[in-house]
């Protein structure tokens, strides 16, 4: 119910006194109203700006945030006010809605921001008042269109990300729709374009009269008749290619019915059909007239270029969207033509030897005059005819000029939208790259943190502090969360490189660096396997002073590798040694540690994987490899198999 209703309710109830004497049954008792119905002033503090309003005002709309008890969540008892950490400028509009019952839309604010505020305060967008409703809707629609284009562009631009299980059909369709996905598609694209051009040129050239070798006094023949076989072969070749293309598209289309009905496929059909009809129609004179007509349709092949040209498509789309304006233009022109033709006909009727033999004959004059062509093949000779002829040409200018700006503005809008789409696609790539970088940044932070022994919870506090890069509270908690996940699933996070390499390389080279032996002896080079029974694993890092591992290899049998990980460029030069639990951090932050890599034979990894999987970019970066600490101390309740790990270091 509207705001005013709440105000008038007491009045309506009071007026019910009029029913009392008439009531045949006793009336129910009135509901209990809480005593403090006194009107109080509430203070709403929105980001420092204080708004004060009567409580009644807010109570008018009980199904919004401010009108219901939901606002109690925001009540600050000390200051006695309701605090919202939102935009105060927008709040003004929201509050005015309570006061006046109409929600106005601010002109200078972003419509998305406004929507978000409405959603927060529990107001439905339908409450926007009539005065602002249209503008609100328009702006929202524009925004939505833009976002939809964004999504489309995203999907379209997803070239490389083809689902692995796509069938031939899907791949083919993709290749057709997006020629830039693969070289084959590109080649196909250009070949078809070339053949379209060849076909069109052949059609044109075969009508040019060409001279024979011997001078003929008779008329020149068109080239098509001089070299019929050549042209026929060319035509056949083109049609074969087009037919092949059409059939392939038909096969690859996800929805064949829709494909059959689409404009491009119709154009394709119309382009190749005349040829086949011509094949089957016998060449006798009866039907040769029809046959000739069919050849005209061959010119439709030029429309096939619209698959190759964005601009053509835009033009076509513009015309389609301006259909109503074009229709109006046509209609008004027709009206004017008929009127003026009639008038001219009757004006020129009296003259002898006049061109204006009938009204339809006068149509030609009217059209030529209204479009200011003025061929001059038909001219009025009477005075009346001349007067009406001049009126005709003046009005023609007006009638044609009216719808044209609409069409032009439509075209301009669509064209600019298209430009925007292209620009946005480019921006999108950058944006996605940035997002991926941010994502990998967090993961890398976690991985790096692990390497640096940060997860070692047995270590002494200070020692740890030295080694580990200080993290914000958020990061700490986030890392703890990831760590919990690792523990839960008995898998570890790793990066793409190590993961892919692990998949590829199962064999072991003769390079080792570490082992997971319980005794803290370094494994000799060449030792491959470590234990295969679950046991507590000590963590150690053996530092090879001269290791300059540049690339870390190996990975855990990790299925939850974070995809799209970028290698962090930051050098991970720290590692914490622990030969023993307690000297966790013999820090030598400058030393370049090798990267311990683990290649695991596919068994479920232990929940305490030895090595982490830091990555480092090639060329000098070293990633210290350390994995989690404190396995010795922690009691591993969950029996997980140790990975049969072999550490390989790249030296």
């Amino acid at each position: 119910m509207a705001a005013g209703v709440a105000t008038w309710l007491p009045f309506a109830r009071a007026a019910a006194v009029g029913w009392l004497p008439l009531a045949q049954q006793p009336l129910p008792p009135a509901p209990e109203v809480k005593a403090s119905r006194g009107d109080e002033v509430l203070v709403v503090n929105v980001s420092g700006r204080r708004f004060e309003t009567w409580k009644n005002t807010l109570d008018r709309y009980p199904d919004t945030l401010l009108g219901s008890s939901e606002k109690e969540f925001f009540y600050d008892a000390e200051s006695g006010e309701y605090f919202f950490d939102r935009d105060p400028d927008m709040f003004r509009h929201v509050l005015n809605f309570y006061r006046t019952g109409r929600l106005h839309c601010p002109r200078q604010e972003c419509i998305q921001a406004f929507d978000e505020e409405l959603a927060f305060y529990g107001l439905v967008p339908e409450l926007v008042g009539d005065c602002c409703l249209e503008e609100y809707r328009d702006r929202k629609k524009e925004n939505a269109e833009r976002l939809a284009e964004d999504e489309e562009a995203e999907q379209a631009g997803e070239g490389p990300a083809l689902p692995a299980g796509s069938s031939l059909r899907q791949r083919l369709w993709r290749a057709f729709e997006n020629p830039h996905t693969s070289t084959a598609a590109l080649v196909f694209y250009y070949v078809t374009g070339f053949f379209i051009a060849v076909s069109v040129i052949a059609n044109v050239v075969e009508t040019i009269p060409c001279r024979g070798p011997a001078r003929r006094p008779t008329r020149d023949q068109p080239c098509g008749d001089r070299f019929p076989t050549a042209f026929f072969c060319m035509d056949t070749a083109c049609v074969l290619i087009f037919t092949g293309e059409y059939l392939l598209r038909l096969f690859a289309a996800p929805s064949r019915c829709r494909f059959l009905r689409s404009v491009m496929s119709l154009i394709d059909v119309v382009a190749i059909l005349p040829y086949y009809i011509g094949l089957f129609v016998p060449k006798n004179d009866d039907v040769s007239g029809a046959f000739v007509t069919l050849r005209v349709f061959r010119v439709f092949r030029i429309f096939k270029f619209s698959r190759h040209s964005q601009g053509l498509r835009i033009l076509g789309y513009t015309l389609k969207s301006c259909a109503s304006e074009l229709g109006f233009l046509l209609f008004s022109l027709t009206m004017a033509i008929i009127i003026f033709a009639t008038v001219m006909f009757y004006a020129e009727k009296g003259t002898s030897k006049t061109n204006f033999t009938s009204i339809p004959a006068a149509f030609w004059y009217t059209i030529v005059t209204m479009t200011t062509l003025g061929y001059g093949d038909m001219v009025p000779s009477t005075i009346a005819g001349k007067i009406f002829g001049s009126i005709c040409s003046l009005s023609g200018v007006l009638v044609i000029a009216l719808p044209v700006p609409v069409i032009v503005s439509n075209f301009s809008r669509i064209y600019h939208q298209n430009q925007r789409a292209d620009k946005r696609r480019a921006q999108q790539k950058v944006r996605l790259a940035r997002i991926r970088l941010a994502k990998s940044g967090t993961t890398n932070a976690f991985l790096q943190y692990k390497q640096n022994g940060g997860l070692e919870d047995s270590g002494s506090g200070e020692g740890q502090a030295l080694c580990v890069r200080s993290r914000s509270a958020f990061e700490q908690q986030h890392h703890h969360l990831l760590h919990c996940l690792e523990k839960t699933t008995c898998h570890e996070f790793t990066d793409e490189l190590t993961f892919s390499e692990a998949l590829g390389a199962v064999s072991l080279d003769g390079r080792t660096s570490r082992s997971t032996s319980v005794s803290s002896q370094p494994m000799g080079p060449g030792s491959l396997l470590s234990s295969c029974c679950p046991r507590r694993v000590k963590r150690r890092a053996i530092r090879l002073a001269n290791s300059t591992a540049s690339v870390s290899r190996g990975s855990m049998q990790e299925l939850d590798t974070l995809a799209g990980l970028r290698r962090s460029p930051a050098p991970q030069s720290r590692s914490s040694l622990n030969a023993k639990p307690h000297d966790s951090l013999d820090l030598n932050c400058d030393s370049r540690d090798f990267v311990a890599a683990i290649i695991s034979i596919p068994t479920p990894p232990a929940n305490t994987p030895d090595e982490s999987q830091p990555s480092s970019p090639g060329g000098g970066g070293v990633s210290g490899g350390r994995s989690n600490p404190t396995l010795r101390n922690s009691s591993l309740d969950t029996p997980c198999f140790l990975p049969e790990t072999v550490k390989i270091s790249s030296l």
Partner: protein
Amino acid sequence: MRGQGRKESLSESRDLDGSYDQLTDSVEDEFELSTVCHRPEGLEQLQEQTKFTRKELQVLYRGFKNECPSGIVNEENFKQIYSQFFPQGDSSTYATFLFNAFDTNHDGSVSFEDFVAGLSVILRGTIDDRLNWAFNLYDLNKDGCITKEEMLDIMKSIYDMMGKYTYPALREEAPREHVESFFQKMDRNKDGVVTIEEFIESCQKDENIMKSMQLFDNVI
């Protein structure tokens, strides 16, 4: 008891030179109407005239002014407001009767003073006052007595507010029967009309009515 302090400021918009067409006609009409503004008497006078406290008057006026910035309610508005409370039925007739009851000086509009005066009687008046007010409501032509026709009109308007979907289903004769029973109870001398004295007397004898008169005391 309308005080002379009633201020009325009329600022009529100038009539445009009558060259309007269909499209702009109505807009200009609205311009003229909405510029009439009415201000009530001072708070003190209203406090004297009615039985509301200062705070109550403030609350009432704020609500009233919010809904009707021009300071008066005309019949259309009144009907519209009242109909929001009874969405199933048609409350326009009863709203008209109510409007006439509130509009004590019969000038076609209810100002804040009328409004508050009426409410004061209903909510803060004595039982007799309220009965008087109710009688005034029923007495459509204000001639001092209620005839059967008047009562029938009132009854029909009340039943109209119920709408179509009732249980048990509304019969045609229900208002009439109700009127009959009402006259049975109220009309002492069986002369076919109910005067104010008969009305008050009969109501005072009825327990239910007496009890329910207190029902709406704490509405404001």
